[in-house]
């Protein structure tokens, strides 16, 4: 999407809020429901200021009843509304998963295509700030595995806005994951990547297309959200070592932009996939399989994956740092691939 004269610098959370705000202005069917989305403005800032503007009939604070309010959002969507519902942390999907994957994702199919569920389920993902095993997961693959819904995870503020608007306008249910560390919140470590230029007017970014955030010839590094950010930092380190890395920000898990990855690997002949999710049966495996199936002969080295080992995410700061991939680990792995 082209940046225009009307761009300003916004944080991830402000970009999301602007998207929701503009869609609510445009379409009276859009409303927001979730825990602490009202006066509080979403504990990760996804709805800040919207309650003041739209009031309690369009910004609904719910009790801690995830099954009830996600189920209710599905009902409202079926009735013709376009709900945005927030699951405070993706980790709590457990208490409401039937509504998500047996209902939200399957109703269109099981009604023979008669009933649409145009719903956005937005949810905070990611660790790195010591919130322990039940508040630090991304669970990308858990959701991407299930048919019937789109699953997107924008990294940068401009994509957060454009993909949120696209998600609201979709007739499919969409899970939009936002990374807590990329919201640009005052009480977290503030990363440069959490602030970026965002056009003022409404626009959409298509769901299902990745973005090459750094071009290079020696190795392809595929990441999403925080792993993209680390990969870009790693690419700087690699540059000093004379290695020219290409970094792909997936942005979307379902649909998955396989073409961009294959094209990149055809150029670099090396693939490193980085995932802030458990290693086994994950996004990294899906991408590795894609390249093994359709790009094997382009490879000059085995595919490499960096992910969280198959352990719950530790609460303790040093222990959590051990399990999360970071720029250094990515650079190491990429170097090893190139020097193979």
């Amino acid at each position, binding site marked *: 999407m082209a940046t225009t004269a009307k761009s300003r610098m916004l944080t991830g959370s402000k970009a999301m809020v602007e998207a929701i705000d503009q869609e609510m202005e445009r379409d009276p069917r859009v409303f927001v429901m979730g*825990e*602490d989305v*009202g*006066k*509080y*403005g979403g*504990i990760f800032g996804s709805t800040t200021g919207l309650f003041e503007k739209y009031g309690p009939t369009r910004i609904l*604070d719910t*009790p*801690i*009843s*995830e*099954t*009830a309010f996600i189920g209710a959002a599905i009902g409202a969507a079926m009735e013709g509304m376009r709900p945005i519902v927030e699951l405070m942390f993706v*980790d*709590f999907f*457990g*208490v409401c998963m039937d509504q998500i994957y047996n209902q939200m994702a399957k109703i269109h199919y099981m009604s023979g295509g008669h009933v649409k569920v145009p719903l956005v389920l937005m949810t905070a993902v990611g660790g790195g*700030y*010591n*919130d*322990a095993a*039940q*508040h630090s997961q991304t669970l990308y693959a858990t959701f991407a595995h299930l048919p019937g819904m789109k699953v997107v995870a924008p990294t940068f503020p401009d994509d957060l806005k454009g993909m949120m608007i696209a998600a609201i306008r979709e007739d499919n249910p969409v899970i939009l994951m936002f990374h807590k560390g990329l919201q640009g919140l005052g*009480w977290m470590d503030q990363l440069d990547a959490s602030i970026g230029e965002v056009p003022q007017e409404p626009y959409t970014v298509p769901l299902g297309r990745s973005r090459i955030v750094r071009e290079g010839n020696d190795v392809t590094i595929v990441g999403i959200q925080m792993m993209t950010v680390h990969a870009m930092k790693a690419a700087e380190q690699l540059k000093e070592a004379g290695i020219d890395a290409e970094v792909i920000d997936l942005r979307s898990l379902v649909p998955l932009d396989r073409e961009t990855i294959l094209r990149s690997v055809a150029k670099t002949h090396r693939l490193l996939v980085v995932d802030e999710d458990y*290693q086994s049966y994950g996004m990294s495996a899906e991408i590795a399989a894609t390249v093994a199936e359709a790009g094997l002969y382009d490879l000059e080295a085995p595919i490499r994956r960096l992910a969280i*080992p*198959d*352990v*719950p995410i*530790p*609460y*303790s*700061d*040093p*222990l959590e*740092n*051990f*399990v999360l991939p*970071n720029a*250094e*680990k990515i650079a*190491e792995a990429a170097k090893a691939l190139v020097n193979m």
Partner: protein
Amino acid sequence: MLTEEKMKGGKGADTALQPSDLERALYLMKRARALDERVLSLQRQGKVIGTYAPFSGQEAAQIGAVMAMESNDWLFPTYRDGAALTAFGYPLSYLFAFPTGVDARWKRPEKLHLWPPAISIASHLPHAVGFAMAAQFRHDPLVVLAFCGDGATSEGDFHEALNLAGLFHAPVVLVIENNGYAISLPRSRQTASATLAQKAEAYGFPGVQVDGHDLLAVYTVVRRAVERARQGEGPTLIKPEVSLCPHTTADDPTKYRSKEELEAERKKDPLPRLTQYLREQGAWDDTKEQQATDRIVEELHRAEREAVKLAEADPRVIFDNVYAHPPKTFLAQRNAFLRELREGGAPS
């Protein structure tokens, strides 16, 4: 915990509390408050990393309830129940350690009848009921005491657990600490029910309200409920009203609560209340106050020192408790991961 005789106190159980028990209660409350304030102050200095849920204002409810338990009983706390934990014998050092170094939060001394604190709201209530049902099945006379917050009463797990408890007469005492808020959502927006205590009625057992700033009152009603449960009369729900601020260290209560409201809540502080009561009874004076303060300072210092020792980070522990019997494939992944960490240098 109290003696066998006091357990038989029945209706007048509060009068069975000796002044020495109340002194102990006051000491535990003061110690818990000091610990809470210390952790928050360490956090402000950037020395505690990790989310921490303070409990200041809820000490009387938590400690009063724990004092009503017997040594064979089991406690099912939430993330909010640090005061209950310390009164229950949970090492203070662990409370200092868990936000710093190792995952001590999940540790507990073998003999402590303590379930790991629930983090997913209300998730532990079905466990508490099942635990109690199992005890009943094995004719073990233990009682399970579970805490939860007012917000938890909206979860499906809460309602399903209560339904089961009522149906099977599970020996459970459920203590809902109503601090008036679930993060930013006030109690009035949590449910249209007139009271939280009346939720129990729908499931066929009694619900009792009590002033949670009053340790004696909490102790008395919990004591009765524990006895009821032990005598096979089934569950009780108890709702102490308490005050609290803020939600967690990642939270700014001024976003949704007025200064006046926070000030009014602070005035209900359970600590001065019990202190004054004991002074009036002649069971507390300046000397005791000073002795208590000195002892608390010393205990907390010791705990912090011990916590530092606990806090050495060894990456091997990440893999230690994932499985009771780790599969070979898991061990292979572990070894490869640790080797790589060693070769790449431990990331900071």
